[in-house]
């Protein structure tokens, strides 16, 4: 019992769930069931994030992908469906095309995944049969890969490349790119409002006395 590597066990469990339900999405033809499988698959992915200690990304996955997108999807299904239970028939050509696109993406991802040196070290250690000896120190002592942390903190207003002034942690010289970032997000809001304005019904209210509706 001592040698069981619990982190790996849970990782395998969640990744298996994610993969199985992702396959279920592909092979199911019932559109709401597909949405449900997609929820489970994305939820398992969120579980993987939590397992990696990335609470924020995991919560984000739950809020945006599982919550938002799928509610939207269900909306779409319900508003467009003609019959009671919609089922999708996929033609042969579609299968070939989607397999081509999906396969290409998978190939790219697999290739880039196996290029990460950390993972190869890890695999080598596991192959040595001392998986129990992988301590956090050992996992992080490998050369730290370039992460987006510094860039992200810069966008949030903390320039980590200017930490040599420790006494003034958050003064004006340290303020990163928070303002441009906010301007971009306000732009998105403007686009959203513009889209809503363009898509609204452009029907004038009827003159009084002709219709009962208002």
């Amino acid at each position, binding site marked *: *019992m*001592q040698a*069981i*590597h*619990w*982190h790996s066990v*849970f990782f395998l469990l969640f990744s298996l769930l994610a993969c199985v339900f992702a396959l279920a999405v592909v092979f199911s033809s*019932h559109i*709401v*069931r597909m949405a*449900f499988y997609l*929820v489970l698959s994305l939820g398992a992915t969120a579980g993987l994030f*939590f*397992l*990696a*200690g990335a*609470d*924020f990304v*995991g*919560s*984000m996955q*739950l*809020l945006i992908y*599982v*919550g938002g997108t*799928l*509610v939207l999807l*269900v*909306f779409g299904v*319900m508003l467009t469906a003609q019959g*009671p*239970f919609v089922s999708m028939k996929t033609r042969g050509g579609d299968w070939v095309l989607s397999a081509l696109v999906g396969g290409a993406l998978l190939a790219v991802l697999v290739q880039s995944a196996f290029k990460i040196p950390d993972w190869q070290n890890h695999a080598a250690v596991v192959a040595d049969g001392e*998986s*129990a*000896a*992988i*301590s*956090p*120190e050992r*996992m*992080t*002592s490998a050369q*730290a*890969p370039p*992460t987006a*942390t*510094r860039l992200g*903190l810069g966008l949030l207003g*903390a320039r*980590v*490349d200017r*930490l040599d002034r420790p006494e003034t*942690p*958050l003064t004006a010289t340290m303020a990163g790119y928070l303002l441009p970032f906010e301007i971009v997000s306000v732009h998105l809001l403007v686009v959203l409002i513009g889209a809503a304005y363009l898509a609204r019904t452009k029907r004038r209210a009827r003159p009084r006395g002709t219709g009962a509706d208002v």
Partner: protein
Amino acid sequence: MAEYFNNSWGWAPWLAYSLAAVIQATLLINVVAGGALGFIWMERKIAGRIQDRLGPTRVGGKFGWLQTLADGLKLLTKEDLMPNGADGMLFRIAPYVSFCASFAAYAALPFAFDWVALPMNVGVFFIIAVLGLEVFGVILAGYASASKWSLFGAMREAAQVVSYEVPLGMCVVVPVVIAGTMDLVKIGQVQEGWFVNWFVLHDPFTFIIFWVYLTCAIASVNRAPFDLAEAESELVAGFHTEYSGLRWSFFFMAEYGSMFAVSGLAAILFFGGWNGPVPITHWLGLDTATNPFLFYLGNLLGMLNFIFKCVLGVTFMMWVRWTLPRLRIDQVMKTCLKYCTPIAAVMFLGAVLWTYCFPGGLWIHPSVPMGDVREEWLGNTARTAAEPAGQGGQAHFAHGASQNEPVPGVTLNAKGG
């Protein structure tokens, strides 16, 4: 808890962790299930009193306090019906989806200082995200029932919940901005002391935004006057028209569970969580006690205080339910988009300006300076991120959060190895 079993009793790590997980899950599920038992009885009594009748009086002797248990037994023995045209799998699974979403929120809800099943530095965010998933069970139920009433109910619910998440999110952001952290334990901690330290009294804007939060919370847990999804005068029973027996009761466990959860969130964000109106534990010296038993006692008092606040919140929701008439769907949307959202936005701006003008507030003197909470995290993260660029003196801990707070998974990994 796992460390305690492991270190003090010398148990194997896997046993310690499994036992700790089982104990915490059992405690939490009892909060949900036991809470539902109590709240349903309370709801019947309150509804009775508000409508000038007595409510249940006989079952279990005085006050009919066993009424819910009797109801539960009745529900257990009911036939489990499913309509002919229904989608069997989705129909069966929908109540559990609702219940799981409601239950998962408790994992990140602290009941007292550091008494939380899953310590997270983004607890608020997690709870909001998970509570938003409850609607998925309702939509599935409405869709899979193959009934027009159910589908209408589900559509209304989906529209309502999706709209109300916007102002709800804005309301929740305000205490987060003031405290400078999304960690619920720390948000509770900075409100220590007298009740003037509560965020609801922090400035006029937070006072108003609390009421907006309350409105949105009631709407998002689908209670009257926002219970259009089950409007029985129009839709028979809405999304659960076709459900019976235990499956039906799962929807209600989920509803009462999330009522308690949003009340708990309100208690922590606006009412100091486990820090009472009067700092009793501080006077007794329990919060700084080095004796673990005394400290535990102080925490226990805090937990009772917190649960009392939650129950008060739930009672308030019941009061609202039996007092106000149900809104129409257009009124529901109007309340959200024309009132709640703009008010929340303006109050958010106001609260931010207030915090800018009076950093630390006017009369609030928390034992933990809020700026420290805020900048401590940012500074630590920034420094950790900057380490690889430096001479690499601490390259072992260079990336990841392992320096400041133990990552759950990694800790498990280290102990389990």
